[in-house]
Structures are given as C-alpha cells and as structure tokens.
C-alpha cells in the first residue's frame, strides 16, 4: 500500500439545481472522504441554519490505478515475488544458499529457487459519520463546519503461493540453513522482519477516530436570471491522526492542513435541467513529518534508523468538472457528475539518511471520476404544508473510472438534513 497517499480526501459535494434544493444541498458540503463531486451553487438564506448527518462508506481502496493507468488490485501490485534475486537482496544468507544450489549440476538450481509470491490481501473499508452544521450569514454568504468520525476496517490476509519449494524439498537434510529456508513462512517471516525493523505488525484493523475538521465559506458572488456563480473555500484542519511511518496499513490521509478554493458556474436550462461546470484548486501547507527514508528504490522496507523528520511539500491538486442535474418532480431529482483532476508531485527536503527522491516517486497523479445522486426533499411539500418538517434525504454513489497513481474509491453515502 502506498504509504504516502492511501486515498484522496475531498470535501466537495453534490450540487443542486433548484433553489430550494440548493439550500439543502449545503448539508452535503462536509462530505469527508466523499468522492468530491463539488459544484456548490447555492448559499443558505440569511439566518437559516441546517444540521445534517452524513453516513457513508468507501471501498475499492485495495485497487489502484498504476503509473501506466491500468487498474490493478493492490494484492497484485504490492505482492512480492520471493525469487532468488529478491531473496538474495533481502538476506545475505539466502545469497549463499542460492550460490550453493547453483553449484549442484549446471542447471542454476539456485537462481531458479523461488519461495513464491507473498500476497497481502487487504479489504480496507472506511465508514464515516459526519455531523455538519451550517448557517447563512448573509443572503450570499454561508459558513459551515463539519466534524467527521471515521471507522477504519481492514481485513488483512497474508498468503504465500506459486513457489517451487516442492521441487527443492529433495535438498532437505543437507544443511539446517537450507531446511530453514525451505520451511520459510513468508507471512511470518515478513511479520518478524517488520517487527525487527520497528514496524507495527500487519494485522486486521477496526478502529475509530476523529477525522480532520473542515470549515467552509460559501460565497455567491454572482447571480443572474438563469445563472449564478459561487466561490467555496474549504479549510481542512489537522485534527485527524498524524502521519505514521511505522504503520504500513495506516491511512495516513489525515492530520493535513490545506486550503481549497472552488468556483462553480450554474446555468439553468429549463425547469428540470441545469448544467454546472466547476473548477477547484487545493493547496497543502508544508508539513513536518517523521518518515522513513529509503536508501534507494529497492529499499522497500527502510530500517528504523532511516527515520527522519522531513518537510513534505505535497503537490497542488486541481480539478475541473461538470454536473447535470435532472429534477424528476418537485421532490425527487437525479444528478450526474464527471470530473478530471491532477495532482503534482510531492517533494521533500534533502534527507541525511536516505534518498528522499524515492519518496517522491509516483506521487504525481490524475483521475477521472463519476458520481450519481438520488435526492428526495420535503422542503417544497413543507412550504406547501404537505409535510411536517423541511428535510432533505439523499443517496450518493461515486467511483474513479480511470487514473494514474491513484487508488480507486467506490463510495456510497446517505445523508439526512433538517432545516431550521
């Protein structure tokens, strides 16, 4: 698993096309870890407040778009084939054993030795509950705050397969070292190696914690008859867990400070249809992180001694996208969103213990995301006194359909918002 960017965080939300619905859409603003289909087109009316609860989950984090844009399972992407070369690199004694086996006949028996592939099957799942509160300060300016609580689950299964140990069993009894090598449980050995190197053991996770709190300012700076423009500024506060260089399964996506600016233009086509192009830009503040610095590209598990406090300059992130909103009735609407985004390379200051350039490898990324929403609102029926309370109920689903150096995220979320 990429320890630098396990997955992306977005606070952008699903826009609403219609006025009343736009009011309530703000409750979607604080969608921590939501897919980030952001095209906020409306502010709350002055003195109107909203309280909402968002509940959702994100899966698909075990899949990743690689440098060549192919989507692979992290099990495959991060699996390690313990062939002779890898073994020799990991362990000098293994190199001797390989050389020993190479001297049996002329068949390079040592070079062909393969303990198999160590596969880390992970099933990371994030569930979140985010209470959100927002208030219209003025007609065109709304402020809001969201406090996400995260539950992170990950079922880890380490398995060893595709070895040719069976063939090499014939060499058993010749030397204790060789016997030990043939009996190697890569999973256990890896855990031991991790522990020896000061890493946390790889085990199943089920933990809950406070995520990064977000504060949002929404300013409608232009409004015409059939169109309008909204600026949204999001401040992400580092209230979540800090970067943990010792935990290979840590999400390491919290505890960040960044500022994101979005501008959305909304054009109403007719009563039922509106189009909302948008763009956003995110800037991360440089941060000091305790991080293990690899010596080179082969140093996939840097020793504890390689830990160093470096300044991380996370790459800029920008996106453009567009939304189509379709109101089926006064209460029910659908929405579809498509966006593309990019992030520039992360950089680190010079390391004294390793090669920090290695940390920068494959940190520039891009993505294409789609989203779909089903929304049910009682605001209109409330205003016409057909409903007791003004509320908004929505279901959102999203996915990353292509990308580079980015995890796939499949999300579903449900939100309930009340207005008062």
């Amino acid at each position, binding site marked *: 698993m990429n320890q630098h960017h396990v997955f992306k965080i977005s606070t952008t939300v699903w826009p609403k096309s219609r006025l009343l619905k736009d009011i309530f859409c703000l409750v979607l603003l604080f969608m921590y870890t939501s897919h980030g289909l952001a095209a906020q087109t409306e502010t709350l009316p002055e003195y109107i407040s909203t309280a909402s609860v968002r509940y959702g989950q994100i899966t698909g984090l075990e899949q990743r778009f690689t440098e060549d844009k192919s989507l692979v399972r992290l099990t495959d992407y991060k699996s390690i084939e313990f062939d002779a070369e890898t073994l020799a690199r990991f362990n000098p004694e293994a190199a001797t054993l390989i050389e020993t086996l190479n001297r049996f*006949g002329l068949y390079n028996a040592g070079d062909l030795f393969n303990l198999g592939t160590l596969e880390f099957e992970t099933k990371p799942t994030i569930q979140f509950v985010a209470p959100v509160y927002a208030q219209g300060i003025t007609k065109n300016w709304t402020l809001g705050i969201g406090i996400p609580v995260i539950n992170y689950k990950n079922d880890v299964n380490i398995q060893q397969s595709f070895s*040719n140990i069976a*063939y090499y069993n*014939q060499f058993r009894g010749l030397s204790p070292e060789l016997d030990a090598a043939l009996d190697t449980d890569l999973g256990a050995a890896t855990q031991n190696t991790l522990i020896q190197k000061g890493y946390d053991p790889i085990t199943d996770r089920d933990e809950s914690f406070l995520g990064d709190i977000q504060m949002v300012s929404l300013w409608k700076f232009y409004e015409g008859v059939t169109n309008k423009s909204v600026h949204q500024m999001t401040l992400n506060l580092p209230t979540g867990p800090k970067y943990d260089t010792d935990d290979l399964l840590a999400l390491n996506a919290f505890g960040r400070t960044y500022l994101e600016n979005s501008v959305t233009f909304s054009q109403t086509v007719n009563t039922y249809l509106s189009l909302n192009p948008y763009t956003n830009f995110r800037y991360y503040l440089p941060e000091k992180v305790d991080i293990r610095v690899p010596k080179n590209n082969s140093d996939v598990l840097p020793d504890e001694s390689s830990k160093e406090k470096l300044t991380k300059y996370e790459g800029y992130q920008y996106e453009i996208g567009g939304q*189509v909103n379709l109101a089926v009735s006064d209460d029910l609407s659908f929405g579809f969103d498509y966006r593309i985004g990019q992030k520039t390379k992360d950089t680190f200051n010079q390391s004294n213990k390793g090669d920090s350039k290695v940390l920068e490898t494959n940190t520039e990324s891009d993505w294409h995301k789609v989203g779909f929403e089903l929304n049910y609102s009682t605001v209109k029926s409330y205003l016409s006194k057909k409903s007791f309370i003004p509320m908004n109920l929505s279901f959102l689903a999203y996915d990353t359909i292509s990308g580079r150096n980015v995890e796939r995220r499949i999300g579903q979320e449900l939100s309930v918002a009340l207005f008062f």
Partner: protein
Amino acid sequence: MKTQKRIINQNIKHFLGLACLLAFTNCAPKVQEKERISPVVPTARTNDTNLFQKNKRSFADFQHAQKNIKNNSQNLFTDAENLLDISRRLQDGLGDDIAFSFYNEAVSNQASTSPANSMAIKDTHYLQLVHEESTDAIQSGTATIIETLRKDTLTVQNLVVAQTEILKTVKETDLLSKQLEIVEKVLQNIVTGIEAAELFPEFKLQLTTEMRTQSAAQLAGPKILATELKTITTLKQGIDLLSAYVTKNAVVLLPEDTKALKDADHLGQLVDKIKNSQSALQALAKTWQILTPEERVLHFKTANKKLYDFFNDKGPKDIQCIVAANCNSLITKLILKVGVYPAIEDYGVGNIKKDITLNGINSLNLAVQTNSQMTLIALGKTLQDDIKKGVETEIAEIQLFAKDFKNLIADGLAAKLATPTISRIDLNKPNSENFMSNYYASVFLKKNNVRQQFQLIDNLLQFMFLGKNTEEKTTQNKIKEILTKADARFYYDQTNKASNETILTVKDQAASLKFYTQMMNQLADWRPSTFDTGITEYFAQDLVTKYQSDDLKKLVFPKSDLFGMALSLAAQTLKQLESELSPIYLMDENNQRISITDYLNNNFENPNAVVVHAAASDIKNKVLSDETHLQDITLMIDALADFYKATEDIEKSTSDILKDEVLKTQILNSRKQVKLVIVTLANFVSNQLVTRDHYVFSELNFKTGKKKLSVSSYDYAMAIKALVTAHQTTGIDIYKLSALEIYYSLNRKFYLTKTKFYSPTIEVNEKGELIDADLVKTTSTDLSVSRDHILMMLSSILPLRSHMNYGSQLQFDRIFENWYSALLL
C-alpha cells in the same frame, strides 16, 4: 399538447435518469487480473540424439550382436558383477547362472595364477578373536568355579567329619551286618547334610549322586558277604567267600593279608581233608603255622599240653614237613606214631576237625569285622580324601578345558568345515584387488557354503591387519581391542614393498569400504541373507564335543556380532575419510582444496566460502596428488552409497555395538555425513567434471587448473554410474538430469553405427573438440565389441532407463535387447 409535452418530458426525464444510472454503472473500470505462472525448476538443457534417424541400420540385430561379441574379458569378476546387476535389476534372473559361471571361472583363474597360502584353523584371526573374547570369561569363570569348589569341599569335609564321628564307636566284635547298618546310616546322613548345605549346585548334585551310587555299590558286596558268612559250615567255605569277595570287589590286600588268606585257604582245605589222625595233624600243624605264639598258647596249650609241647619243640621245617606230610625223619615218624597220633585219636579226629573249623570261622569273622571296623574308623578320612581328590581332578579338568578351549573349538570347526586350513590374503596383490575379490566372493556366496563363510569372516580380520592405524605399534593378539577402537585405519599400497613411499590410493580405500559394506549386507541380523544358515548356526557345544556344559550352548558366530565386526571395520575406513590423511577433501568456489578436518575445525582461509564440492585424490608420502580422477570419485561414491544403503534400518540390529546409545547416535550421524559426502562428490562431478554440453572430463589438475576431456566411453559410463547412484541415494533430481544429459552426449558422440554399439574411444580434432565416432575414417573391418565393454555400458545405462522419455527408452531398448540377449547365449 401540453399534456403530450409533459408526457414526453416525463419520459425524457426518466430516460435521462436511467441513462445516468447506466452510464455510471458502465463506466466502472475493470481490474486487470494478474496472470500467475508457477516458477520453473531445473530441466535438461540438451536432447537425446535420434539414433533412429542417424542411420537406418543403427541398431544391432541378434545375429550381429552374437557374431561380434568378443569374449576375451580382462576382468571376469566385473563381468560377473555387471551381468548379475543387470539380471537382478531386470528381475528376470536370466543372467544369474552365467554371472555365477563367470565368477567361478575368475576364481579358478585366480587360483591357478596365485596358489593360496594356507593357515591352520587354530591360527586364524577369528579363532584368535574367539580366544580373546573367551579367555577372560573362561579364566574368570574358571577361577570362580575353582574357588567355590574348594570352599564347598571344605564344607563337605567338615560335614563328613561330624557325621563319621559315630563310626569310632564301632567295635571289632560287632557283627559285620551291624557295622554295615551303622555306616549306611552315616552315609545317608552325609548325603542329607550335603543336600541341605549351600553348595555350588552342580557340585552338590554331582557329589550326592556319586555318594548315593557309590554307597549302594560299595555296601552291596559287604552286605552280601555278611549274610553269606552267617551260613558257612566250614572254614573253606568262609575262605572261599572271602576270596571271591576280594576278587569281585578288587580289594587290594596287603601282602600279609594275602598270605593270611592263602594260609587260611590252605588250612580250610586241610580241615576238609581230615579223616584220620595223620590228616588231622596236618591241619593242626597248619593251624600252628598260622597262629602267633600267643594264639598257640591260647588254642593249643590249654586244649592239649602234649600237642602244644610237641609242636613247640619242632622247628618250622619240621612243622612244614608235617603239614606237607612228608617227614622222612625216622625219629619224627616214630614220635608221631608213638606219641602224637594216639593222642590225636584220644582227643578225637572229629573233635579236632570241629575245633579247627569253629575257631577258624570265628577267626575269619573276627578278621572280617576287625578289618571292617578299621575301615570304618578310617572312613571319615577316606571320604574326605576321596572328595578332595575328586574335586581336584575336576579342577584339573576345568583348567585343562580353559587352557585348551581355542584348540578344542579349532578342532571342532575344522571338522565342521572339513578342512584343517583356510587361505591367507595374498599380500603381494594390490589392496583393491584383494578387497574386490573378497567383495565378489561375498556377492556370489552360495547358501551353506560354510568354508567360504568362515574364509570371508576371517578375511575381514586379516584385512584389519593389512591396514594400519598410525599409532599402532603392534597389532597381533589385539583383535578385540582394534575392533572396538573408533580410529581411522589406512590401507597403504602393499605392492612395492622395496619402496619407502607410503601410498594411499582412493581405489584401495573405496574397495575396502565396499567389501566391508558388502559383508555388512550379508551379516545384517535384521535382514535375511546367505549367512542366516551355516556357520552362524554353530554352537560352541557343536564344536567342543568332549565337554558338555550349558556354557557351551552359545553361538560361536552370532550374526549380530559378525555384523558389528564388519560395521566396526567399515567405520574405521570412514573415520579415515575424515582424518588428516583423508583422500577426500572439500573445495571452495575457486576449487581451492580444504581438508575435511580443516573444514570441520573452521580452519581455512575464507570462512564464508561456499563449500559444496568434494573430490578425492591419492596420497603419496602424506601429500595429496595434484590430480583427481573421475573414475576414483565414482568408486568412492559407489562405496559410500553402498554403505548408506546397508545401514538403512541399522537401529534394528541387536549387535552390541548398537546397544550403546552414544555409539548408536554416532553411527546414525555418520550416516548423514556419508550422504553429505556423496552429495559433495556428486556436485563436483555434475558441476565441474562435465562441460556445458555434458561432455565428460576424466580428470582435473588442481595445480594447473586444467581439465582433461575424456575420449573414453568408459568414463561416460562411470560418470553416469556416479550420478545415478548419487541420485538414488540422495533423491536429488539434478544428478539424474546430469546423468541423462551425459547419456545424451554418449549417444551423440560415441555411438558407432558400424559396430552398432558405443565406441570405447573417440578422437578429438585439432581444436580439442570431440569428433563423432561415425565421422572418424578408418579402414578397419573389425566389428567386434568386447564383453567387458558391453556389460559395463549396459549396466551403467540401465538404471537411467526409467528416467528417460519414451523416445530415448525406445532406442535404448533397441541397443540393449539384442546385445543382452546375445550375452546370455
């Protein structure tokens, strides 16, 4: 219209909603499944040559093979072994008899060229070992028995003294029958006392049995005599009874007793003849002669003063003439007629006869009773002396047995083997030849051939003296000690005795191990073998018939002990292989030689060296030769593999050597070490003594680093044999692969279409490359192939057959079948 428009809009809205949903679903990316391929394992690099394509007439038909086999074998022993190996591998038994005939021919050839030097059975090493093994036990046992016997004798003697005390009260006037009753009771008490005493069981049994028997026998005669004496009416009858008793019982009489008996007999005769005064006087005169002066006074003077005076005045001659009735003196005749005869008649001739008879019988009884009484008084001492004497005789016998045990066994064994001698090892032959001829003798040993069995057993020990331990000063008479030593034993080359050089050859060491291992196979007590019957069934009692003892009911050649002997000698050879003078050594990746002792002690330059190769070289004057030879290594692998196999399930042996847990562990560990040595030797062959194309190097010179490419198919056969053996022993496939590829290269270069068999040798071109045998131009029309060569090649390749692919098997079968069939006819 509005309604229609609304309906259309509604439909459009639904359609768009559905489209969004479908688009969302269809946009989902597909995960690329990574294709996993199992990692490869070592496989052969080269392929077999298609001999079917090489020449349409590549393969020999039966007639060709039969016509062209040349039977001028150089080594009938190896021919026999190779043929037997093929026959047993095929489990057809077709070649068994021919193999045995080859062996017998080889043995008779050997006997005709070098007649055996014989040695007496009693001088054999095994008998010496039996002597060594038994001496201590016999000496110790003998001493214990003797000490016990002497102690017990004293106990019995004391018992006899106590019990015979009562005999001193017996009087001479006691009737003989009464005396006999007393003595019988005493003897019974002695026997009862012995039975109650704590004595050496066999001694007790023997003594009581003897006493009962002897008592009955000894008392029977006197009892009869006592009864019969009561019935006699004449002196002559009494004397006759007594004489008969003396004769019958072989009683040894003192001269005076003999004389007395003779006189009494004479008297008896005279008494029986008394009819008148003259014959009465003869009897009286005889009586006078017999009596002592005091008795004369008692019996004559009181009875008849005149008669007393008459005799008393006579001298002995006169008395004698009266007895003989030939007194011619006129005076004497006158006196007799005038004075004596009348007096006798006065007394009465009948009275005289009666008196003399009565007194004579009384005197006889008294003499017998007195004699008996005197005997009884001395009986205690007599018994003691007899017992002591008997025990001492027994002790002397035991000591003689102990001293002569080896000879007794030797004589018995010679009788069983029907020969007084066996052969000595011919020290003028090379060690390997000696070892291998014994190896073959063991392989071809027939059931119940006891002479050959003993010869092989003794040869084991004879070979022990062929080898030397570096610290041994003298080895004679220390067989047991040598056998129990876990020291290395070196078999130095014996052939050049004039030279001061000490040469230790790989061939000799391998041959010694091979022989000892073969003997271990034959003697393994947990597996059936030809040694199950024959000498291993001989008990000491079967050989020593002169003495009977439970102690002799022991096997003289217990199979488990013989196995321990062979194992011990094999272990000494193996010990030698890890000694400082080992011909086997290890090599690092740069072919730098490291002695096994240095390796075990971590005493070499590069402790991180990868040491997985080993080779073997001869040692001359304690210096390793610069070369190592493939053939030597093959012999060593073969011998070590034999040992490894022979010790399979060794823990099942009941041999004493394996009852010691420490020794047992050492043996089991050494078995693992042997496997490792085989692995390292096979690694060297498969990695260093073959080219990338699996052509074979016959030798490597460590000094120059040069390898000699072999042009001999014999080397190829040896390489195949070494690697197949290593594969069978270790289970490592790589050796099998190497062997197969060497076989492929054999087919590629050595198969000669003209002879339809493998050429013994091929040639190299100016670049040093091997030339295909078929491409060598020759004008020779000789198509013959020697039997040695055929057997060697076929027996070496046959074990590979099961590992070949179908095509290779097919063409091997085409080569094998007809040549093998032709060999059987």
